[in-house]
């Protein structure tokens, strides 16, 4: 009689049979390309008709990023992106929380409003958004009439004014990136026990106190998730200038695959740093709450 397999072994075998397709895909389409890309980033890569020629050159490409005009353009687009994030992330987060709190009230037509606030997620593709921005439909006419952009250009230095002016000229479209986050916050709000509010009310807390003492703390862990989502979403958005550089340099004569790979890695490092900073800021916030509660 055949001995049955041990439970643990069987679990592993069956588990991997489910996970197998993904695992193969991860190896072939992600992991190997990831290491190849690292190798390319330190090589001269020439793609010719009959194959690919790779010469290892150590950090030559990376040096080029910091010494050529093209590299400088890329670095500037990354720093622009970082400055924009500094404004966009708080705008999107606060906006989503406000909308989520309002939609979580006991009001009629909840479903309708939710549908409206989620709508942009459905249609916000790169070309559609860039059409809207280009045609000037992405901002409230008031912004221009009040001369806000002129004011910004006069007040700040050039490198700071450009990203800030961008934010105002795309204000509505920035809010469009809040659709998923609003839903995340609504889900978090629904988990808060109604009785907590009632107890607070009996203890004499008004709506204002309840909001800051109950609602906001209960949203903190979701805020971190929402921020990570926002950053990744903006970082990989197809009209992002920094990632456009990566694609454009692939087929540029002087630069090519090697240089592109190098700036792609630098972009990833910058992104990881930004995410790390936000993570540290908000992880601290969640910890503190746990200590006092």
């Amino acid at each position: 009689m055949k001995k049955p397999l041990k439970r643990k072994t069987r679990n592993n075998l069956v588990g991997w049979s489910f996970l197998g397709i993904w695992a193969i895909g991860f190896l072939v389409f992600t992991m190997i390309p990831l290491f190849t890309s690292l190798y390319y980033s330190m090589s001269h890569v020439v793609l010719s008709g009959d194959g690919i020629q790779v010469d290892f050159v150590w950090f030559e490409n990376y040096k080029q990023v910091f010494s050529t005009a093209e590299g400088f353009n890329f670095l500037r687009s990354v720093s622009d992106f970082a400055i924009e994030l500094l404004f966009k992330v708080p705008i999107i987060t606060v906006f989503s929380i406000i909308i989520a709190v309002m939609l979580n009230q006991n009001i009629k037509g909840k479903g309708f409003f939710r549908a409206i606030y989620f709508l942009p997620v459905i249609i916000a593709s790169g070309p559609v958004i860039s059409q809207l921005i280009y045609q000037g439909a992405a901002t409230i006419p008031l912004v221009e009439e009040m001369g806000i952009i002129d004011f910004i250009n006069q007040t700040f230095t050039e490198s700071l004014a450009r990203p800030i002016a961008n934010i105002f000229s795309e204000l509505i479209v920035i809010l469009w990136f809040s659709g998923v986050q609003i839903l995340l916050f609504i889900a978090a709000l629904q988990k808060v026990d109604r009785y907590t509010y009632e107890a607070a009310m009996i203890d004499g807390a008004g709506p204002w106190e309840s909001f800051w003492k109950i609602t906001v703390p209960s949203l903190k862990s979701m805020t971190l998730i929402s921020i990570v989502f926002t950053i990744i979403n903006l970082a990989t958005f197809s009209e992002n200038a920094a990632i456009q550089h990566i694609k454009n340099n692939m087929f540029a004569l002087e630069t090519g695959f090697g240089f592109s790979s190098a700036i792609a890695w630098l972009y990833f490092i910058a992104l990881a740093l930004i995410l790390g900073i936000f993570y540290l800021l908000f992880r601290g916030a969640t910890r503190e709450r746990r200590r006092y509660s």
Partner: protein
Amino acid sequence: MNQHFKQKIKHKLMGKNFNEGWIGRTAIYLLLIIIGFVYLYPIIKMFAYSIKDLEDLVNPTVQWIPTKIYLENYRTSFIVLNYWKTLLFSLAVTLIPATLQTITTSLAGYALAKFKMTGKFIIFVIIFITYLVPVQVYMIPRYVLFNQLGILDSAWAIIFPATFGQGLSSAIFILIFYQFFRMQPKSLDESAEIDGASPYQIFFRIGVPLAGPAYLTAFLFSFVWYWNETYISSLFIGSDLYTLQLKLLNFQSQFSMTSGLTQQAVNEAIKYSATILIILPVLIVYIIMQKWFVEGIDRTGITGE
């Protein structure tokens, strides 16, 4: 008596809680409507402009409501976009990857939710990393690989990674399925096992049927994200095949190619009409399936701890 009356009015207006009184409620409705209007302003403007003729466009007194409905813009866009043919191709590189990606990620999510595998933690870390690493980092070797396989500039370049769970936001879908399958009661699986069902039978007979909402949500999001994706598709299939989004990206040059007119002849009304034609398919899906998009995130338990 008078005191009592005052109290009553105060309650009606202000409520015991801010949101229960008339004032609070009206304020919330007003805010929601006003912000909602600003939020949708670009779409409304787009619709209004897309039916303007040249006269209305240059006339500064005509802002929101055109003097007549002018559909010629749409006809022009229809021709420039080569709408039906492009739509068919767009649907092919959207529906097929979305379906396959949903299937593969559900398998992966099921494996992680139901089986005590060694190294599960590492797999989770890897999945999380694949979410964080932007595709730009590994797309160049992928490009080289697809070039060698000869599938560049064909739909396969989009379909292959999706099939193997390496498509757009695959990590999110794996987590959605993981959360959802984990919430299913274990006792069901156990009783099926005692009755002699194999793990695969359990998956198909119990796991999948109970996970309908998760499948639908994952598929819909996958569909929409593939539909809106242009960065990767322009690299992998963009040089001679076009999706609707890619046509919009190059609308100016497409326009002069098909109409023989100069690029300057494209006015904003034509562009807006083209944009509307491109968002129309997803908009229709959204109007029909709206509930599944909006409630899906909550229902799949992705927000649970």
